[in-house]
């Protein structure tokens, strides 16, 4: 699959790092979640908010994959957050913002291109050395592992299945007994 943001080399580092912070993260496509988020504006509508009301997994017509259009204000907020303010005046109304893309480029450079080939203990050491970036990566990895698969992660519902979570359930919902009984 072509990536929306990462280079092939960067993608391999992200994938290896995700698999270390969440075992199974590689198979669950957590790196694709992060790539889809950082590259949200490479597609139209941008991959910020999945559609509604139903995914089709529990009945109804599937609509999560049709991402919702952003308003000009939404676009300003999310481009600033992801791309940074980049000296653009409209994005700097409350000062310069370092974007997530830059934080990832810096973080991946610090982990090193050789990261995927290192033994696990050495990978762990590099992640611990770059604590700030690892915290950011882990937050996104959690979203990619346990969020709706339409965002690119949780492939084949690997995350939800691994922990026994039922995920989105509309329009089926739960019966009263499923709510009230053990």
């Amino acid at each position, binding site marked *: 699959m072509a990536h929306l943001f990462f280079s092939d080399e960067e993608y391999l580092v992200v994938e290896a790092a995700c698999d*270390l*912070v*969440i*075992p*199974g993260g590689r198979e669950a496509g957590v790196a694709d979640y992060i790539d889809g988020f950082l590259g949200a504006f490479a597609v139209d509508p941008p991959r*910020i*908010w*999945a*559609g*509604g*009301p*139903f*995914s089709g997994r529990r009945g109804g017509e599937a*609509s*999560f994959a049709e991402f*919702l259009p952003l*308003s*000009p*204000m*939404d676009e*300003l*907020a999310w481009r*600033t*957050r992801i791309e940074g303010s980049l000296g653009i005046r409209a994005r700097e*109304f*409350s000062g310069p913002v370092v974007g997530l893309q830059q934080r990832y480029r810096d973080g991946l450079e610090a982990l090193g291109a050789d990261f995927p080939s290192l033994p696990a203990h050495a990978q*762990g050491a590099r*992640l611990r050395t770059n604590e700030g970036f*690892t915290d950011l990566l*882990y*937050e996104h*990895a*959690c*979203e990619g*592992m*346990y*969020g*709706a698969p339409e*965002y690119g992660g949780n492939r084949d519902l690997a*995350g939800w299945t*691994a*922990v*026994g*979570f*039922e*995920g*989105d*359930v*509309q*329009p*089926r*919902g*739960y*019966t*009263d007994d*499923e*709510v*009230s*009984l*053990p």
Partner: protein
Amino acid sequence: MGSGPGGSAVADVLTSAGWSVVIFEKGRNHLIDLDDPSRRKSDYSNDEIKFTVRHFLGPDPLLEPRTFRRSEADGDRAFVGDVNNLPATVGGGGVHADGKLPRFREEDFRLLGEHGPVDGAALADWPVSYADLEPFYAEAERLIGVAGDADANPFAAPRSKPYPMPPGAPMYGATLSAAAAERLGYHPYAAPTGANSVPYDGRPACNNCGFCAFYGCPIHAKGDPVAPLQRALLTGRAELRPETFVSEVHVRNGVATGVEYVDAGGTTHAETARVVVLAAGAIETPRLLLLSGFEHPLIGRHLMCHFQTIVMGGLRERVHPHRGRSVTHVHDDHLVADAASRQAAREAGLPWFRGGMVEHCGPGGPIQEAKIYPWGDAHLRSMQKSMFRDRMWGFTMQGEDMPQATNRVDLDPRVRDVWGFPVARVTYDSHPFERAASGHYGPRLAAILDEMGAEWTVTTSSPDAALPYGGFISPVPNSKHVMGTTRMGHDPATSVVDSYGRVHHVPNVVVADSSVFVTASGYGPTLTLVALALRAARALTS
């Protein structure tokens, strides 16, 4: 201003009386098809990323930050970001709430008279009584659609009508905690909830999906303001303008003449009006009055929220807290003084205290859970064991918060929003009253979890001044129940609005949200603010 529960209730009443109404909403519209208001939109979904991570219901704290400090000793501000943010979207706070809609009780309107003053608190009695408000409570319950059991709560105030619907299915965890609470002598009951237990007002029954608190309802079974807004729009006399930020109320010779607003493209417009209704919430409403140059010294003061005591416990069995209406049981016992609470108050140097309504509740979704555990080898095992989600249950007490003049909203001297206007600055610190009540009731809630068989319990409170900014618990209160910043009263010297929400000095400006509250009570504010808004709207049309 504002299309939440207060603004939509007013729009419903005014349009049905033949008035023409323009509803300004600074957030986006994900609720109603404006080309055909009989149709609802379908943007809401069971999506943890969209609703809890990516600000789908707004406001985006990057574009519209607020600032916070505990006191002037912190300097101009100690924190910039999300401060008690309620949704900025069509439907407002009614969209994300899980819809617990209790009434206040008689004494909530006359705490000063009943219990006496508290040092350092600007306690006052309300200019309305429970009896004045009762018919409007009944109307509000019908307007929103509240499911409940009129006989279940022994502390409840008298009511003229039953709930329009019976309660929905109890959550399994709540059946356990309610039974344990009963064994310890408390009186848990089915929470009055704005989620349909049967088809109601053209909307379906709730199907227990569990994505309730912090989510919009994908099937519109929740009593968000969709019904009153649709009714208002379908008269043809209301116009809803999403993505418009009202920046000023124009006033000439003590009379409001209209408003100035910025549209989605950044262009400034003016609109004239005979009456201006403010329902933007207890932080944005005083901000707008201050931006407009209103000068009453109490505007923005007496900001209250609820002091939350959060007690959670780990259970041996799984209780699937992700199924059901987020909260199905509550108890009021900790709002009622007894010998032990009087003794504890005396020991804390207080004349009296009380806590708040206790919600029997589980934790959030798996993304929120995952971020609690450390990364690495143990992550997946932690998630599978699910100590902080599937095996967790507990309580949140919405503790009464004393009104203090020093707790306030004003305009930040430097920080601006995306439109270039000064943002709201919150100055807030808790009173010994809340801390003492929390310290007294926290162990009692933990004892209920022990009685349930919890393997461990943990007690926290929000706000907590000892913790750093930016975390889940911090000096910024988590409570979205903000109240009190244009308090109501008979005397223009000691209150900003009268008992009908009319600004004393500019009576054609009406406040129709929880800004008008005189005290916080220990109950969620929504039903009371809607009842007051209905009363204010009827006064306008009578």
